[in-house]
């Protein structure tokens, strides 16, 4: 019971992540890649993502502090962030990145800042949510993740 409850919760959490747009189909791909050979693949990748993206975010912050007019650099960082977030299916983060880049193109510092903050927020939220999700998964055990929510 406990177990199936956990499973349920995990499944629900996952579903909601998708429904709320935190994750997209790319995440499915990740999940599919997880198998006996790499049972924690998804978590590994996600962890890697957060580590890398944290670094990028701090780079962006530094750039904004020191040379906020350096849109080229900003754009490069955001582009990178967008790349990685799209790779794991972090769609909200990705969208925020896209918008931010647009502002960078327009050299709109204010817009850029605004979007950047949004980006940071999304990033934090996702991190927290996925964190609990994985935690739950671990509790559930090496069970297959719930079936894909109907698309």
């Amino acid at each position, binding site marked *: 019971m406990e177990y199936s409850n956990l499973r349920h919760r995990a499944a629900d959490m996952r579903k909601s992540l998708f429904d709320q747009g935190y994750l997209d189909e790319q995440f499915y791909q990740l999940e599919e890649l997880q198998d006996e*050979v790499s049972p924690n693949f998804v978590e590994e*990748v996600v962890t890697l993502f957060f580590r890398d993206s944290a670094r990028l975010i701090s780079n962006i912050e530094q750039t904004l502090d020191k040379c906020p007019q350096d849109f080229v650099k900003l754009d490069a960082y955001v582009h*990178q962030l967008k790349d990685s977030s799209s790779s*794991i299916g972090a769609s909200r983060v990705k969208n925020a990145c896209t918008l931010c880049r647009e502002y960078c193109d327009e050299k709109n510092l204010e817009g850029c800042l605004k979007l950047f903050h949004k980006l940071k927020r999304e990033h934090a939220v996702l991190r927290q949510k996925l964190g609990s999700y994985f935690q739950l998964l671990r509790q559930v055990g090496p069970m297959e993740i719930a079936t894909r929510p109907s698309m």
Partner: protein
Amino acid sequence: MGREGGPKDQFPVGLRVLAVDDDPICLKLLEALLLQCQYQVTTTNQAIKALKMLRENRDKFDLVISDVHMPDMDGFKLLELVGLEMDLPVIMLSANGETKAVMKGITHGACDYLLKPVRIEELRNIWQHVVRRRKFDNKDHNNYDNGDDFEKLQQGQTTGGSSDLGGKLNRKRKDQNEDDEDDGQENMHDNEDPSTQKKPRVVWSVELHRKFVAAVNQLGIDKAVPKRILDLMNVEKLTRENVASHLQKYRLYLKRLSAVASQQANMVAAFGGRDPSSLHIGSLDGYGNFHALAASGQLPALSSFQTNGVLSRTNSVGYGLRGFAPSGIVQPGQTHCNTNSPINDLSKLQCISLPGSKHGKLLQGMPTTLELDQLQQHKRMQEATIHLPGGFSGAGLVTGSSSNSFVNVTSSPLLSQAYRQHTQSKGLGNHSSVGIPSMSSDPFHASVGGSSHLPDLGRCNDTWQGAVPLTSYQSNTLSMNAPFHHDDLANMGASVPVVSHIDSTPLNISSSNVVAAPLHDPVTGRDVQCHASSLGGNTMLMPSSLEEDSKFLNFGSAGTSKQKLKEANQDHIHEPNLIFNSYSNPSLSNKLIVDPIAENQRLNNGYLSKKLDINGVGQTNFSAPVREQNCKIDKSTTNIQLTYKEDSTLETAKSQGGFNSNGCSFDDLVNSMIKPDRDDIAFMDGDIVCDFYPLGACM
């Protein structure tokens, strides 16, 4: 890998992929996906490391997947290098799916362009690129010896998608169709059979190309549409698509030409003069020559050229080298083309265009036909100014510095001979680096050892140092050592010995000295642009098979010598990089872009490759390999050409390196061989641009 077997069976399994991406997440994901497809994956997040791994053992991998956006090296650059050096299929990966970005990837030679985040379905198809490429290569290799035209060149040698524009295009199409269905992004070409190439590759023989050009001219280049061309040509088994792709290449070729044409026109004219007397090197007219060459598959004969007279065939060609006693520059039977009539040699040299089949290909493929046509026009101007052949001998062709020793390239003998004579007569100065147009589809970078050899050139007085790297000379690398140095060369400084070790393989002008073929003006102030493509150290492939029209003397004269040339020039024939397109096709006359690049080594490096490109329409083809490599032929050629154009005389050469000698008129060259001077100035104009077009041009 059971490649030969059913594609899907074992082959895809175990495909060895090298994945390069600076983003660790993407890399990890990619790795996982590839593993899922059961490929063998090696990953690295640095392009430099990737290159290193590839260079160590290119056979270790079947395919490379690379991100576009990387901090240590631009993805496109990596792509080019890999395609050029290793001839492996490369797939680009990027989050940027804009058409122009994709286009850039394709034009740089990517087999495919995938969008991130990449999906596994797309990866499942990538093995097709490997198969396809292998298949084409094989096919090309088979045809190579037939002296097929540039198609082969394109396909075969260069392999790398980049090198072969045509092949690439074709391949690209297929790839696109097959692999991009998912993305749908590049489904632009759908004329090819998606699954596998159904139609056998069309070989654009000289005859065919001639028809094509005739049709195009008839319709008018602007109004020439594939359908109408096809109708006019009236060749069965030719499809509209074939014509379309060929037309595309032709257009590129023309564009390149026109850039140089003005200058070259003269040169071309020079080249055109096929008649032996007129020493039309490069046989601008070479068209015919080329055809002759091509037709007779002589191009491959270039190799025979090696034997000595390199151009034994060329003899027949009678290189337009005037004055050159056709005694055959390339004394065909003689191992050394000892100073036999230098001119002859030159002419021979011309013939030298690409002895190797490969080379021949170059010539053939080269726009020779195209060029021929064009050249013809130009030629008239100068009437076989392509004395380069003669000068050729002096020019870089001289692979074998004076010592007849054929430097790799059979051309050398020729060159040496011619050179010798030449030197005597006048510092050929023109080191025609016969950069064999990347005959070797391989990285053409045979860039003629640029300037390093210059000294040699200078010394070449008697010897043809300019190893005329006739392409395909047996030695792949066209190290055209411009042995041409005749005295002039010394001056010319262009002694960029383009050592085109013309191996049978495509001009590996790798670092060969660009022998700036000192296209002496004497040769004929024609636009003998000897592209010393070899300058770039690219050995110019002197199309040994230039028999006919040594016009092809595309001496990639190493620019270095050029400088000297300038000084000396007067006598020297422009070192214009005699790009001996292996064709000896006079058509090259235009192409003969002799780069007087003597000056700049860089020219050598870059130029040759480039030059070659320029020259031969096929350049694109071969240049491809070369291009990518050092020789950014494309770029260089442009440079070269430009230089040519501007100065039209050695002036440009100067920058280039050299085409000091005013347009190498081949005639003059020839003459100059005897008595240099004279037309040096004349040459100036013509920077004989020996385009190697003929070589590879015929795509």
